[in-house]
């Protein structure tokens, strides 16, 4: 297999190290001056609403797009000039299934292995079939597979050349919970073996399985760090309320000062706001003995929605 990249600065801990990366399509700035460092062996979660620039950013990392501004390296290779070296050492799983539906699983893997010019191709294909439990189905056409199996094929294909960095763009969209969990177990095994993984997702439970997170909206990186860092970065206060007539209560409090989010979860209502004093003052005004109020730690989703709302005020 290819030796570790010679161009990598010695002792560099970062698989991804970029600053000021920007991409414009026409007059629209899709990715706006993003700085990002991802340590080797880390699982890095990339979150943000649809159209926030996640996919465009990933495409710049793997050499598909050239940034309009900004510099940096991916696996030690320059993202602007050494794109073909990057392609050799990165596995990229696209958002949409992008293998040939009229080819069988084995034919697809064999094709990709040939493109990477793998020395012992047959063995490499067989290894990846077995690793992802595809061996029994290797002769099935990719088009006939269900979502979960397609996802496995995609993962097998982008791992076949033993990349050092995996870029996964919403890999678990439309996959059932069991397949999702198995997929994440596999990702953690790979990270334990030293692979760096950058993964985009909309699922909060998946975000919590990442070592580090970044949140992107309107092409801007709004926050990043560990789960606790991210939760702390937004001083959000959240109360829950249970009791009768929650729908009426929700209507009533939505417009009160300091209350930014009112979300129903089954029989409880989550009420959040960044200004704790204003929030609590508003809640006092609607106190009703039939309701039970509790202050809880804000969830990741509440934090992200709050981030997006404030970003909308700033950029949109």
């Amino acid at each position, binding site marked *: 297999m290819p030796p570790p990249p010679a161009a990598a600065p010695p002792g560099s801990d970062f698989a991804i190290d970029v600053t000021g990366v920007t*991409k414009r399509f026409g007059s629209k700035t899709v990715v706006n001056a993003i700085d990002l460092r991802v340590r080797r062996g880390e699982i890095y979660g990339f979150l943000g609403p649809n159209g926030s620039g996640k996919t465009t950013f990933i*495409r710049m990392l*793997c*050499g*598909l*797009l*050239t940034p309009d501004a900004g510099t940096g390296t991916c696996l030690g290779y320059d993202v602007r000039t*050494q*794109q*073909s*070296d990057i*392609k*050799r050492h*990165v596995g*990229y799983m*696209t958002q*949409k*299934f*992008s*293998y*040939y*539906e*009229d*080819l069988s699983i084995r*034919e697809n893997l064999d*094709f*990709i292995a*040939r*493109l*990477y*010019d793998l020395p012992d191709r047959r063995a490499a294909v067989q290894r990846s079939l077995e690793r992802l439990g595809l061996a029994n189905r290797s002769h099935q*056409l990719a088009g006939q597979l269900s979502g979960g199996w397609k996802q496995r094929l995609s993962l097998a294909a982008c791992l076949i050349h033993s990349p050092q960095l995996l870029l996964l763009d919403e890999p678990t969209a439309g996959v059932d919970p069991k397949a999702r969990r198995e997929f994440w177990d596999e990702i953690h095994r790979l990270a334990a073996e030293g692979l760096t993984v950058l993964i985009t997702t909309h699922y909060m439970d998946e975000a919590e399985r990442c070592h580090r997170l970044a949140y992107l909206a309107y092409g801007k990186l709004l926050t990043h760090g560990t789960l606790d860092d991210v939760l702390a970065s937004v001083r959000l206060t959240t109360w829950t309320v249970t009791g009768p007539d929650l729908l009426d209560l929700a209507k009533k409090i939505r417009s009160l000062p300091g209350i930014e989010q009112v979300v129903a979860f089954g029989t409880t209502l989550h009420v959040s706001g960044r200004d704790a004093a204003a929030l609590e003052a508003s809640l006092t005004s609607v106190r009703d003995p039939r309701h039970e109020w509790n202050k809880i730690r804000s969830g990741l989703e509440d934090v992200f929605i709050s981030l997006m709302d404030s970003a909308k005020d700033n950029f949109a």
Partner: protein
Amino acid sequence: MSASRFTLHRLWAIVLKEFIQMKRDRVTFGMMVGIPLMQLMLFGFAINSDPKHLPTALRAADQGPFARTFVAALRTSGYFTLTHEATTEAEARRLLQLGEVQFVINIPEDFSRRLLRGERPTLLIEADATDPSATGPALNAVRAIADHVLDRDLTGPLARLHAKAGPIDLQLHAHYNPENITQYNVVPGLMGVVLTMTMVIITALAITRERERGTMENLLSTPVRPIEVMLGKILPYIVVGYIQVTLILVASHFVFHVPMIGSLPLLYAVSLLFIAANLAMGITFSTLAKNQLQAVQMAFFFFLPSILLSGFMFPFRGMPEWAQWVGSVLPNTHYLRIVRGILLKGNGLAEITPHLWPLLAFLVVAMAIGVKRYRQTLD
């Protein structure tokens, strides 16, 4: 970009993949075999027209007044334009074989003398009759001219020369297709038309389909080079093109009994250039088109002039000059002449070389645009 050299391994990977996909897509493959057969049946009919100003070589051994009157009459008929003067029979024959001229008019040296003696001198007109619809009307006009052109000259004492059978013994030699069988012209011409249609459409879809299905993004994220993808998509269809060529040749021989005078290996060899030129055109379309529908529309946009302005549908020389200019750019125009030349005239490499260069030029330009347009990255 040291890591991005062209490799045969990757080219082969694309070729293999295309073959597997071709094998799985039965409908398309059936079409590629079905289209040639269907068109053969449809175009077995004659298409007629009345082309004028056909290039003509004059081999006049007699410069006497009667000879000049005759030539002037041919000119004013509008069918003939004197473009060449030939001195020997071999030279005249060569002009015909190269397709430089459509007719050779031979005026024997004793024409005027024998005419005066009332001996009905022979006047030989040789025609390149590969395309009967191009020569037919002109030859009819000659017959009328021969009978009446000298009416004004032959007055007074010469009036006796108005023999009932006409003063001149006009001999017409239709070369290459003496029986004026239209199929001899149309059927070999179909080779170019069928190849243009199927080859351009198939490859026009090739890259657009990858883009539409999302597989292009994946392909781009691997180390594969644009030229590897292009050649890899072209090579399998060259095989398909040869299957079509063979089908049409077999049908030409057994169904339409088209003579095959020239070398078939030569025809197969030069067909490669034509097939490749069309495939490159298709690939270029597929890098321009946003979706498969657009790709098919572009292919038809190219196909229409290829069928109408190449000399397949109408005699090339019957078209207005601008149309001939457009026609000369199209690969089909040159391939048509090559195929007819080899099959009907027995042309060799020397005679067809003038038509190989335009094909090669077209191939290089189309391929260059295609590779340039195929975006290594998505931006």
